[in-house]
């Protein structure tokens, strides 16, 4: 994979691999009622089995894009094709079965009187029987480590607990695509590692594609197959985490900072006066590399 830079003046949407494409955002724009530009001529795609991370400054349009993916927002221009169904042409009656979205603000997502009811809501709408839905819900709650909250009222949870429950609500539906907006914000490191593991596991076990919007670039580096840098409502550059996160200028242009691991490595090379030849992006890689560099 090489970095693809997108020309802000003129965007092309080329189908990268039409056969495997699950989501194709075709030059979509969205203007909010007050005239704010949410996204602008954005081109973006997600392949089967892929984990894509959206990274970008505050207000760059990540959440706006995510809310388009299951038809909650409709593009004012351009189109979004999910699994062959065009949103603009209104072929989107049950988009929600395809794409599960976890909102940035988890309390927006919880509405049922108890946590269990809330997690069961999706499965029931999928037509599961009450027992199956119950099982699915309990399993999902177990997966995120929140099964002891089942009987609580969603509005009486702590910030992180709400996030866990809202992720469980989507997990329980096993959609083909999951779009998670800031899945780990408000989560403590242990739960956040749990969610991270889950995302990977879902891809392995069920072939679920995942889109995450996140500010935790270390997380993106660890789990994403592809990183899209979002800037001013459009994808500014995309590529593998290794390429993107080692392109210091690109990251700065997007208004971001390199992940900690990358900075540690670069700083280290700088201090030792050697050229950074490798590109570690996870802690394990970094440690191995440092060890090798030391013993050389």
């Amino acid at each position, binding site marked *: 994979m090489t970095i693809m830079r997108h020309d802000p003046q003129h965007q092309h949407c080329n189908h990268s691999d039409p056969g495997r494409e699950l989501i194709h955002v075709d030059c979509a724009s969205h203007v909010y009622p007050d005239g704010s530009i949410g996204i602008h001529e954005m081109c973006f795609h997600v392949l089967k089995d892929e984990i894509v991370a959206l990274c970008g400054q505050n207000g760059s349009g990540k959440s706006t894009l995510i809310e388009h993916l299951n038809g*909650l927002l409709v593009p004012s221009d351009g189109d979004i094709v999910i699994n062959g169904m065009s949103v603009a042409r209104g072929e989107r009656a049950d988009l929600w079965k395809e794409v599960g979205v976890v909102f940035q603000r988890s309390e927006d997502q919880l509405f049922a009187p108890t946590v269990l009811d809330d997690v069961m809501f999706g499965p029931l709408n999928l037509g599961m029987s009450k027992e199956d839905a119950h099982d699915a819900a309990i399993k999902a709650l177990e997966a995120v480590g929140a099964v002891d909250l089942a009987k609580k009222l969603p509005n009486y949870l702590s910030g992180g607990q709400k996030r866990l429950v809202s992720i469980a609500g989507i997990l329980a539906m096993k959609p083909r695509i999951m779009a998670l907006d800031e899945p780990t914000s408000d989560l403590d490191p242990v739960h956040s590692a749990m969610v991270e593991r889950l995302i990977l596991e879902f891809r392995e076990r069920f072939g679920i594609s995942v889109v995450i919007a996140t500010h935790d670039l270390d997380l993106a580096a660890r789990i994403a197959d592809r990183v899209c840098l979002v800037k001013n409502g459009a994808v500014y550059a995309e590529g593998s985490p290794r390429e993107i996160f080692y392109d210091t200028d690109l990251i700065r242009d997007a208004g971001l900072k390199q992940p900690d691991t990358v900075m540690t490595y670069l700083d280290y090379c700088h201090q030792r006066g050697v050229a950074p030849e490798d590109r570690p992006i996870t802690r394990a890689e970094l440690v191995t590399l440092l060890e090798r560099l030391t013993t050389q």
Partner: protein
Amino acid sequence: MISEHIPDIDLITNCAEQQDTVFSRASPWTKFLLLIIVVLLITLTSNLVVLTAMYAIILLACVMAGLPMRKIIAWYAMPVIFVISLVGLMIWNQPGNPLFSLDIGGFVLTLTDQGILLIFTLLEKALISVTFSLFFLMTTKYAYFSALVSRLFPTPLDQIFLLAYRFLFLTLAMAASMLKAVRSRGGGIIHSIRTQGGLFAGVFGLVFVRSFEQAERVEKAMTARGYNGTYAAHTTIPKPGIAECGILCAGCLAIILIFWMVPHAGGW
């Protein structure tokens, strides 16, 4: 948001705050007094020419203020339906030239040209009032409104008014986000009430309690930044200028004229 045809108060506020035209610089007092004059005028007169002239002037002002006319017209839906459906029951058997008659089990209902005219008159009156109210809302900053409210209303009333206005945004946002959440997992209000009725009873209760608790929190957050019931103390309302006084006088004159010309106009 919830429906195309319900005025979106976020958008209304946004207009009011971003406005920078003559109309938003004019004194809120002028607009307030004009509102009273407009309501009096449409109560007093049923003359279609006068009404049409008023309507035209108000629409022109809206256009000049750069208000989103498309939205305003969408928001007309409810008032129009209110008038048509209620008055629709009452326009039958007016005097005038009959247009056609219906015979329902012995009752004969006749529609006349006067009946049609009546519905038009009432409709136009309604639209004048609605449009002017929206114009007022969409060209006046919130700070001025709250100052007006605390001048016009005695104490607990003004507090209730102002807090309620704030909470309204929360409650509507809460309702909207609930709808969003339900839809994003395959529910629909009607559909879900049918299939999961028991659950939805709880959902209603919960939304209510939740918005209440959020209101409580916001109120506490305001207290945490020094709110003590006098939100508007810092705003001075601009006084009407000479031109504005002129307009107000003209309005009063119009009322007197209508009284004088059509002594029975108000049904006295």
